[in-house]
């Protein structure tokens, strides 16, 4: 397999929490606590987890909106922490983002043309005519007629706005798009349009995606590989098919048990995990999932398991990594 477009190694981001009044020790929120990810060229990595697990902080670190506490992020082989000046601009051109809510991510005072052209005006010195041509082209790519350019965002529905946001992300020579829950705010009938559009764009342009979501079925549909995150850590990564066929980590299994059926005959009697995600301020000892884990053992409260390679269904090339001490999960 070729080298990945983006490689994240042991990434950490700890936020200080206000000190106590009388100089007690400052506490830290370990929002991202040792994350490893790799995104292959032209592929989609799905990052799935519940709110507060660090998905969005991870994406901010990748977008260089936050500086990591430690760890490295390599884009096309280069460490992005050391990028400055022209190289940093080139990175910002190559990596773009689409946010969840297209009603707040597009300025209501700007015309579609200006929204989509803004990255081009910042990053290129193309003449006006060439910019207009490029704007028309990317609008067409996302399935909007080029004559919408002079309109304002309020004249569009949610799905169309999300298309505009995708067009903006594609305007420069983009190689990686971070999609932070891009369909969660859309109507059901429109979600499918956007997902199909994203898949088609990937096929025709070869762009890579980091798709962040919490809906298992949607993430599994669009992703090649999936990373499951819980309280700042990746607990399992695997090829999307392997993960769906044989989830290994008890938390991944819990997510599958909690997933909604697609037919009334698939109603499960399986009881879902109990309890709630603990506060990131006071993490449980040992394995972070142990207070909620249905197959918890005494050792889980003491030793924090690390991601280890597992045999993902016997196919050698496919590697599943999973952080769980339970010997039961290695079976098969």
């Amino acid at each position, binding site marked *: 397999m070729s080298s990945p477009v983006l490689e994240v190694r042991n990434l950490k981001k700890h936020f200080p929490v206000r000190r106590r009044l009388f100089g007690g020790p400052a506490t830290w929120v370990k929002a991202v606590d040792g994350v490893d990810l790799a995104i292959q060229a032209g592929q989609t990595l799905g990052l799935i987890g*519940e*709110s507060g697990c660090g998905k969005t902080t991870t994406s901010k670190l990748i977008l260089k909106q936050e500086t990591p506490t430690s760890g490295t992020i390599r884009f096309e082989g280069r460490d992005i922490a050391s990028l400055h000046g022209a190289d940093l601009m080139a990175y910002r051109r190559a990596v773009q983002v689409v946010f969840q809510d297209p009603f707040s991510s597009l300025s209501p005072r700007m015309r579609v043309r200006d929204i989509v052209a803004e990255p081009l005006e910042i990053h290129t010195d193309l003449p006006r005519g060439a910019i207009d041509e490029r704007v028309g082209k990317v609008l067409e790519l996302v399935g909007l007629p080029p004559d919408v350019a002079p309109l304002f965002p309020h004249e569009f*529905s949610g*799905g*169309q706005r999300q298309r505009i946001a995708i067009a903006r992300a594609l305007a420069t020579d983009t190689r990686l798009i971070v999609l932070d829950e891009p369909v969660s705010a859309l*109507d*059901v*009938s*429109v*979600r*499918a*349009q956007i*997902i*199909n559009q994203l*898949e088609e764009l990937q096929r025709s342009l070869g762009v890579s995606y980091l798709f962040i979501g*919490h*809906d*298992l*079925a*949607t993430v*599994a*549909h669009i992703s090649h590989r999936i990373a499951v995150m819980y309280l700042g850590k990746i607990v399992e990564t695997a090829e999307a*098919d392997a993960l*769906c*066929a044989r989830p290994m980590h008890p938390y991944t299994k*819990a*997510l*599958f*048990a*909690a*997933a*909604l*059926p*697609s*037919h*009334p*005959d*698939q*109603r499960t009697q399986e*009881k*879902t*995990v*109990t309890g*709630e*995600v603990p506060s990131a301020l006071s993490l449980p000892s040992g394995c972070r999932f142990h207070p909620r884990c249905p197959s918890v053992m005494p050792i889980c409260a003491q030793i924090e398991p690390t991601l280890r390679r597992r045999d993902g269904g016997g196919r050698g090339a496919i590697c599943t990594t999973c952080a769980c001490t339970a010997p039961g999960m290695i079976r098969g």
Partner: protein
Amino acid sequence: MANREAVLQVAGLQTHFFTFGGARVIKAVDGVSFTLREGETLGLVGESGSGKTTTCMSIVGLLPRAGRIVGGRVLFEGEDLTRKSQRELRRIRGRQIAVILQDPMASLNPLFTIYRQVAEPAFFHQHLRGRSLRERVQGLLRAVRIPSPEWRMREYPHQMSGGMRQRIVGAIALAGGPKLVIADEPTTNLDVTIQAQYLDLLKDIQQETGVALIFVTHNLGIVAKMCDRVAVMYAGKIVEQAPVRELFDDPKHPYTRALLGSMPKLGNKEPLYSIRGQPPNPANLPDGCAFHPRCPDVMSRCMTEEPPDFRPGDGSVARCWLLDDVLARS
């Protein structure tokens, strides 16, 4: 199920919004009929603006000022709620009919303790006081699985997590011992594992109390998990209504088929079926069948004539001209 008593009968309900001093009329709900029996769960499915919430708010008489019920009846245990005064409705809401809304932070008062808010229905409707009231509140909190309720009830909403707040709202809904609970997208703001817990809880409570449930949602997965019957709404009308298995196995209306096709399924990577266009503007609906501009099977008749209810015989009702041909041929 069929011979159980009907708790709620909605017949030909029409709720319109009058804006610009009546110059503009929005037909938010336009001829909705359904029946709900004891212990039954009805899923009300549709996209935003399809009239699901307005239907529910018409039932309990909590419409915004511009909204008015202009036709139809809402029979609750044989009495027409549309003819009741707000004073009479207040005695029914909270006691016999309870509502759970999407955002628990908006339903709970941040200035009052959990105890005070959960106790309110029992205080006003059952006139409980003192220790019996306290015990009732603790019992309700225990029923919605709040750990150590005797401590938790002294806390305030901001001290609870989102899932717990929504369970508190559930406890308030159950406080009056209702016959009908209307849940309007109660889990949209919750995380997946918390959502699954909450749905399981609602089901358990329903089994224990036999309460009838209207579940408003846009998520067909929730329908598949929770509901006995489904009504699919589009542009203020129920376009298809059927028992849940019938609807998933053999959807009659093209809109239902499209909704089912656009649902991502685990282990299936084929492109999703997508519906072209967007939901229509309720102030400016297309002529004929409101779905015709987006319908893949549109016929010339659909553009001018509105389809009536067709009953293909398996307990489902659908508004689509395609069924006219199908029924005529058979």
